[in-house]
């Protein structure tokens, strides 16, 4: 209950300070601007490390019946809003979207570590002072669609509860507008979208307008991207870190690019190139939803697979100070320094701390170099949405 208390206390303080009555449910940490939403790294509902949370308000479209869900994962590596049905009362009913044949549209969302299953519903989404109307969102674990088709459950373990998923939902604010994109609009692919009449579910196509959609791209204002702003953390980590999720890039006085460097990313995968140790990694990503740096380096010792704290993470005898270069498809390049601590010692020696800037693990993707949440501490990281215009041209790109 600790996290619930702190969220409430925080909201109460913010209300006192700014007298905010916009109904958006947002809380501003560093500013009273309507495009600023508080974000927090803390243990959260599943006691996890390096997990970035925020609150999101969903409403019946066009109505005033709204609910605010706390501890929603902020993920620049995915697109679309997904909420655990368990976090909403059964009496709160959002309209069900249908496929082109008129049957209920239900989604199987694939993650590398499992899948979420649930209907696509329509909701007005409010975050800070921003609003998006009739956004397709996924309601994970909705009891109305309890039976999971075999072609969905065949992709891995289920993550349809707060405990299994590690959060009350996920706010995907990545570079894409939709989670799947055009391939799901033209092909009925196993493991993505399903039409689910009472007789059972079958793979179906889902037009772009019906796919789970990045709510930021549908905001009335400040809709071309986000900035994740997190302060630096000490080498021993922190129990709680508070920052800001700022909406829009170059649309307000508080979200300009300033001196930030723009790195265009591949339009099909959202990836860019990282150069490390004289090797080129072509599947690189700035991902607030990944808890660590993930990259391959055979010279760094790995914690025991059965380590109780950090199984399989990097465990060098002493902290390694490293650097790697990010290269955008536009030719922009920047070298970033980062540290890799002994993950076992880090967790063992700092009980209660769950925000670390020096946690790393081996990457299995041959071309993968993932700049996870540790890379976000002490930076303002911009994520520009595909096909949206910004002061630095069209997305998709990342900048910092």
């Amino acid at each position, binding site marked *: 209950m600790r996290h619930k208390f702190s969220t409430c206390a925080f909201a109460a303080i913010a209300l006192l300070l700014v007298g905010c009555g916009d109904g958006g449910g947002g809380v501003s940490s560093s500013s009273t601007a309507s495009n600023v939403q508080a974000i927090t790294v803390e243990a959260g509902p599943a006691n996890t490390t390096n997990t970035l949370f925020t609150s999101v308000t969903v409403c019946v479209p066009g109505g005033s019946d709204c609910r605010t869900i706390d501890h929603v994962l902020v993920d620049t590596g995915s697109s679309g809003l997904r909420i655990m049905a368990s976090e909403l009362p059964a009496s709160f009913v959002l309209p069900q979207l249908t496929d082109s044949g008129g049957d209920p549209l239900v989604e199987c969302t694939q993650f590398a570590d499992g899948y979420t299953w649930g209907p696509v519903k329509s909701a007005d989404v409010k975050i800070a002072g921003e609003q998006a109307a009739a956004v397709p969102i996924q309601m994970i674990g909705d009891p109305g669609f309890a039976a999971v088709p075999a072609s969905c459950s*065949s992709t891995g373990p289920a993550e349809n509860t707060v405990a299994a998923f590690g959060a009350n939902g996920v706010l995907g604010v990545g570079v894409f507008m939709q989670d799947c994109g055009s391939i799901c609009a033209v092909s009925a692919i196993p493991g993505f979208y399903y039409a689910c009449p009472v007789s059972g579910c079958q793979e179906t196509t889902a037009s772009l307008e019906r796919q789970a959609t990045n709510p930021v791209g549908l905001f009335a204002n400040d809709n071309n991207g986000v900035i994740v702003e997190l302060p630096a953390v000490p080498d021993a980590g922190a129990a709680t870190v508070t920052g800001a999720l700022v909406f829009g890039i170059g649309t307000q006085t508080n979200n300009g690019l300033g001196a930030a460097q723009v790195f265009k990313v591949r339009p099909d995968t959202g990836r860019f190139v990282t150069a490390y140790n004289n090797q080129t990694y072509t599947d690189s990503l700035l991902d607030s939803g990944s808890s660590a740096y993930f990259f391959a380096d055979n010279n760094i010792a790995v914690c025991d697979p059965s380590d109780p704290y950090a199984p399989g993470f990097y465990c060098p005898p002493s902290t390694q100070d490293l650097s790697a270069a990010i290269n955008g498809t536009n030719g922009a390049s920047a070298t970033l320094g980062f540290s890799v601590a002994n993950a076992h010692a880090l967790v063992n020696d700092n009980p209660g701390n769950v925000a670390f800037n020096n946690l790393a693990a081996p990457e299995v993707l041959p071309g993968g170099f993932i700049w996870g949440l540790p890379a976000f501490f002490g930076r303002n990281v911009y994520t520009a949405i595909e096909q949206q215009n910004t002061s630095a041209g069209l997305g998709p790109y990342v900048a910092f």
Partner: protein
Amino acid sequence: MKTRSHVMPLILLMTRCLPAMLLIATMAPRGASATLGGAMASVEADQQVMNASQQITANNAAYTVYELQTAAGTKIREYVSSAGTVFAVAWDGPSLPDLRQLFGSYFAQYTEAAAAARRGHGHLVIRLPELIVESSGHMRAFFGRAYLPKTLPQDVTLSDIR
């Protein structure tokens, strides 16, 4: 409209060795893949279940690699030892493959271990005595591999499985 995906026309993929090309030319066009740990005898099962096209991409003394491509564009490589056993599978592409089909009897172990070993939604590493699974990526760009460490042929290194 509820359409099932259709078999894509066989797409000629980059092949790494000439013998493989020759084999394709001379082999009957039958699927040649099987479940992890299974025998070659269960040919065509994976290909049919996943509506995939299929092709040999490597063939040497230690093993043969059969590459499938699903309708979604995900490539699956199955590593078959010279004794005829599937000892590894790897995949990359926009969607995850049918892991229940690929893992066979190991799928239940995999899902149970995965639920206990979470480290964020972009990565998964499972290390059991008989099964190693490494999975990475996000929708539109996944990669992963699984292998049976006790059945790896002698001349195979892990960097070969990708």
